[in-house]
């Protein structure tokens, strides 16, 4: 029994049951496959997290985001600037107690270099309902190249606990079609 010493002292020479051998091989190969598939996705997949990151003083990052927002603000919503950067440029977003700042307006099918960092504590960048979830750190500026594939209004929530106001920490991203005239009309009608 499992609670007594093995009856045969030389237990390591005992033959293995066939079923155990087959299952071990199947499980091992499946493990190898799953291992290989993560590598393969870097070549065949369109969703891989970039490791590009820079150390930066949180206050410096804040200044960068503010300069970026000032340059491309198109309107305001609830006192938060809505920023519409030119296609394909660097876009900055800041997590702080308790908001994701500023609101972004992006174009579908266009790639942006999105910079993410925080001013104070760790925050969780959670794009909903798309469900892209990335950790954001103070002192680390993380850069990912993001291409929206659908239009609409998307929420950013915080999913890293950041104190008593954690549950009011939200942000927003609008994604519009590249045919801007149409979109502007639709948005105007919608508001």
């Amino acid at each position, binding site marked *: 029994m499992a609670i007594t010493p093995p009856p045969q002292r030389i237990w390591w020479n005992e033959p293995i049951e066939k079923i155990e051998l087959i299952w071990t091989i199947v499980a091992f190969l499946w493990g190898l496959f799953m291992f290989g598939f993560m590598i393969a996705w870097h070549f065949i997949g369109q*969703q891989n997290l970039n*490791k590009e990151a820079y150390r930066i003083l949180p206050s410096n990052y804040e200044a960068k985001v503010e300069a970026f927002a000032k340059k491309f603000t198109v309107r305001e919503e609830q006192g938060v600037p809505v920023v519409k950067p030119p296609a394909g440029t660097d876009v900055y977003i800041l997590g702080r107690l308790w908001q994701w700042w500023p609101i972004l307006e992006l174009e579908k099918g266009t790639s942006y270099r999105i910079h993410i960092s925080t001013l104070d504590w760790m925050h969780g960048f959670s794009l909903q309902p798309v*469900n892209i979830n990335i950790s954001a750190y103070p002192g680390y500026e993380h850069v990912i190249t993001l291409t929206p*594939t659908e239009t609409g209004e998307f929420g950013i*929530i915080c*999913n890293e606990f950041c104190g008593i106001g954690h549950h009011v920490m939200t942000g927003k991203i609008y994604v519009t079609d590249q045919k801007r005239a149409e979109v502007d009309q639709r948005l105007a009608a919608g508001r």
Partner: protein
Amino acid sequence: MTAETIVGAVGKSAEFRTCQFTGLKVDVAAQSLIKANAVAAVIFLLVGGLMGLMVALTRWPAVHLLPAEWFYLVLTGHGANVLLFWIIFFEMAVLYFASAVLLNSRLAAPKFAWLGFVLMIVGAVLTNVAVLQGDSSVMFTSYPPMQAAPNFYLGLILFAVGALIGTAIFFATLVIAKEERTYQGSIPLVTFGALTAAIIAVFTIASGAVILIPTWLWSLGFISYIDPLLYKVVWWAMGHSTQQINVSAHVSLWYMIAALIVGAKPLSEKVSRTAFFMYILFLQLASAHHLLAEPGLDASWKIVNTSYMMYLAVLGSMIHGLTVPGAIEAAQRKNGYNKGVFEWLRKAPWGNPAFAGMFMSLVMFGFIGGISGVVLGTEQLNVLMHNTLYVPGHFHGTVVTGTTLAFMAATYLVLPLIFQREIIWPGLAKLQPYLFGIGAAGISLFMMGAGTLGVPRRHWDISYSDAPLSFAHSAGAFLMMGLNGISAILAALGGAIFIIVVVGTVLFGKKITGGHKLTFPLHQGGGAAVSHYGSHATVKLPGTVVLITLFFTCFVLYYFINWKYLSELWLFR
């Protein structure tokens, strides 16, 4: 070097009693320590479990029990009490049992073991007090720059030192048993599994010291800065490895319960032990599971670590997933339940809470905790669920339906064997594993469901009603949270019955003296099952083959479904 020089000058005059069921010699000092640790474990389960219920009721949007401050406070306490204190106190009991009792040996340095116990109690109380004072609601993970009161960290450090002493006593007892030849040949498989847990515990506690001591000094103002990313790497070398101690411990208990109840014997010692050995070699890499969505870490580092080096530790668990039910099937068939594919399972002792809890733990750990863990820990798939409620969903599958249920099941054997008390209210005890198991499975599955729909973890208000920029989750997410609340009530009911039965039995259970009706194993002859490997006498195991085929099919399907989800996301690189 003798054992005495290792553990200090200890007299050889230990007091023993003989177990009337198993004939094992039981060191009375070890027995008292097992009792003390088991009782402490159950008390912290009570505290942490109540906190868990409050968390679930707050997350249930229709109930929303606690205000935000209390929610975050109670959530921090819930993590520390059940994930750490309940489980590690119980594991100390397992270590003393698997060394002194199973090896017929005296326990090394019982006085030091008591010192360890006292340190653990002091530490656990200190941390709880710090949490309840309200300035340490930093969550169990306490990521900087968020800071808790110094006593929050100090309590954890003292607790870890105590646990380290207990682990050292375990190693020393193995040395003594070997030296005094209290057993023949190799240590039993269950002790081998406990040894695996103890080795991982040393690594775990060392990592904990490396990160918690500087963090404590930082909270006292002696250190000015703790890098949050570095903290996370090292903290999870403790945090995730703790869970690997649990896995090793509860797998050992599966083997133990199967042996004691149906007389199951490992199909092959070699395979089961190799599977444990895989844990020792590879399980500690799991820190990476928590760093897949972090800036600055290289993909190759992530892939190697998150897969435990090509899933070799997962392979270990998948092997146990075959050998444990396989051993039970073989024993049951020898016991005479040989009809068809599943008579052995149908006529298993489902009315025995130790067996029922153990088998549910085995199935749910594999299907719920195991599969979700691999998916969550896949480099790219992680982005779908990172920090959503999927994460607690996954680890309630491992730690609650896996570890906690197995520990509860083992308790039903500890009560008659170590406390020597007859279980009061056996009818209630019979029901308990089902209530708790089904409730816990619901908690896991519904939280995973909510996480898949984007609901964040550690979050007081998923309606974001006070947020300046509003956001609304789908109706399905709210439904999941309601179902999660109902499951939590079910699990809490099961937990309450467990605590009532255990406390009642310890205090008022009829003292067991000779000639008792309990028999271990239930059927004689079970112990002889599969006595010659690979011979014509080997039992065929069609039922187990069906079970693992089902498991493997679910695993593969669920794995690819998630890749499909991932491929539909926005593009990022």
